[in-house]
């Protein structure tokens, strides 16, 4: 069971800020700043957070589409960051990505069959063109597209069908890990569920491992085995999706969950919202200590300002649930009360 496919250690992605005529580096946008996570084979890790938290950058860094500044990424024991370009290219067969906007990730002038055969040619898969085409047809059928889909162009499909094409494209090389960045957020509500169910079936049948990145808390809860909540470049809480959603520990997780709308007027009327003040601080100049302290209703003097909290286990919670908050126990027990926040501030 302890077969870890993806292991990320202290990963950081910093983008330099250059200024002046010499384009000297004057600072860095710390998009991802010290993230560690492990994804066991055959499971789904869901990364959730608001825009600008670094979740997409993390997803891209795992595939080395963005070059990490520090840290390590291991896929099945192989250190991805140590690979030279040619070796990396070969390794990419095992790692594929599903993008948010399938239309933008498909060539408008290429038929689906041609687009899907190309990776097999690039990677020199055995069998030659006729075998490749047979595989493409099988895959299109597997993702629930009609048999004539291969000869069509991307614009001829509806949004949901395009995402099915995007998933088929990702599967062509028989990967082990799929990184799906907002796989359903561009789709209509009635179609979202189709794609989520398809992803589940494929995982079950093909033993795939997923890293799913999304801003929609309900989607992440539904698909994930483990959920990681990101805020300003770092994980603030991580845990199995059931316990994490039932008893969130970090003030940010609590605020996110309290803000997520539920299609049930009774639940909506009863819920207590945790209001956050202000906006996300700039990742170029993150707050000292705890990064969430500028918006945290439970912020305490000194320690929150001085010491960056690390992920840790809290008594009374499962050992898989980890939170990066100095005062998680006190907040949960109600020993620290949130400060009043003006609703519109």
């Amino acid at each position, binding site marked *: 069971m302890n077969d870890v496919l993806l292991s990320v250690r202290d990963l950081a992605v910093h983008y330099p800020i250059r200024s002046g005529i010499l384009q000297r580096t004057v600072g860095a946008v710390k998009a991802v700043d010290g993230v560690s996570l492990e994804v066991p084979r055959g499971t789904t890790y869901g990364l959730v957070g608001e*825009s600008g938290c670094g979740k997409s950058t993390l997803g891209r860094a795992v595939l080395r589409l963005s070059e990490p500044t520090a840290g390590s990424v291991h896929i099945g024991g192989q250190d991805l960051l140590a690979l030279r370009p040619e070796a990396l290219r070969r390794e990419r067969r095992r790692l594929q990505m599903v993008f948010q906007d399938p239309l933008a990730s498909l060539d408008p002038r290429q038929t689906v069959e041609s687009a899907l055969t190309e990776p097999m040619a690039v990677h020199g898969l055995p069998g030659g063109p006729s075998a490749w085409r047979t595989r493409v047809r099988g895959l299109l059928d597997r993702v629930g597209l009609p048999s004539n889909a291969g000869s069509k162009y991307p614009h001829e499909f509806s949004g949901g069908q395009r995402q099915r094409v995007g998933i088929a494209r990702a599967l062509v090389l028989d990967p082990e890990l799929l990184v799906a960045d907002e796989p359903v957020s561009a789709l*209509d509500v009635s179609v979202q569920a189709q794609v989520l169910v398809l992803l589940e079936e494929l995982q079950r049948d093909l033993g795939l491992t997923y890293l799913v990145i999304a801003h929609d808390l*309900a989607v992440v*809860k539904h698909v994930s085995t483990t959920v990681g909540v990101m805020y300003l470049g770092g994980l603030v809480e991580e845990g199995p999706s059931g316990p994490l959603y039932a008893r969130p520990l970090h003030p940010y997780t609590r605020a996110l969950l309290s803000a997520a*709308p*539920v*299609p049930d007027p009774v639940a909506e009327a009863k819920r207590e919202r945790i209001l956050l003040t202000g906006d996300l601080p700039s990742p170029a100049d993150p707050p000292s200590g705890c990064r969430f302290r500028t918006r945290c209703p439970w912020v305490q003097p000194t320690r929150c300002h001085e010491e960056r909290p690390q992920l840790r286990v809290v008594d009374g919670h499962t050992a898989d649930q980890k939170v990066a908050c100095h005062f998680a126990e006190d907040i949960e027990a109600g020993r620290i009360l949130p400060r009043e926040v*003006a609703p519109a501030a």
Partner: protein
Amino acid sequence: MSLLEVEDLRVRFSRKGGPTTTAVDGVSFSVDAGEVVGLVGESGCGKSVTSLAVMGLLPRRGTTVTGSVRFDGTDLLTLSPGQLARRRGSDLAMVFQDPMTSLNPVLTLGRQLTEVLRTHTGMNRSAAKKEAVELLGRVGIPDPRRRAGEYPHQLSGGMRQRVLIAIALACTPRLIIADEPTTALDVTIQAQVLDLLTALVRESGTAMVLITHDLGVVAGTCDRVNVLYAGRVVEQAGKRELFAEPRHRYTTGLLNAVPRVDAPEGTALQPVPGSVRDLLPWAQGCAFSPRCGVADEGCRSGEIALSGSEHGAGHRARCVHPAEVGV
């Protein structure tokens, strides 16, 4: 009589040499003062076109709008463009989805606010400026005096949406149409903006039409709901009735397909098959029938009326086989 009464609204787009498209196909609904009415549906259901038609913002060329839109007794569709322009901004206001494209990037926020005030209320420059700062403060923008001198790009998305709301509120409109006002925002900011909008409606007795695809937003904000599909209202009900006893198969399908944060672990989603493109023209029966699990021959012929049930005239559905109440 309600403040806004939309009756049998139809919007057709025609192109030279091309076919005519009916985007809105006989939509009727009403909104009272101090009430939030939701128009819910997926892409292409006609919810945004409905709102643009109410506001008279559709292009005149190639568009045919019929039916009636009575606002406080006056049919807005019969007004001249000039008369309508005077109403917009003062009596009627609109909040759009994307605040960046709705704000002018080269004018300060203060200028964009005072423009509305001076045009519609005839305030002088200094009074308008004072009022603008006050409005920015009212929608929760910190340090409004300084912000009034800034440009849209200097603000975050949530702040920009607040500015749009401030502009919409400037002349204390009696009706606000908010078209996906929070879709571009993060959940925590979405919650703030929705709270702000509903608080304003409750305090000042403004009527609001909220257009959204998000059933969660509807559950938290609206009083009454109209579910749209392929240009028609398929279900119309009070919020509680709609969620407790949905009747149209499209509504039940949507509710079973949406993942929920409060769902017990292992809850399976039940997707609605097909896509919004797979539809039957309303003239030939129910547009949703190609995607419906219980559709039969009766669903594929003739006109299907929006009809009430014995449980209340306010809850109406356009369905041959409505879901049983209490099942």
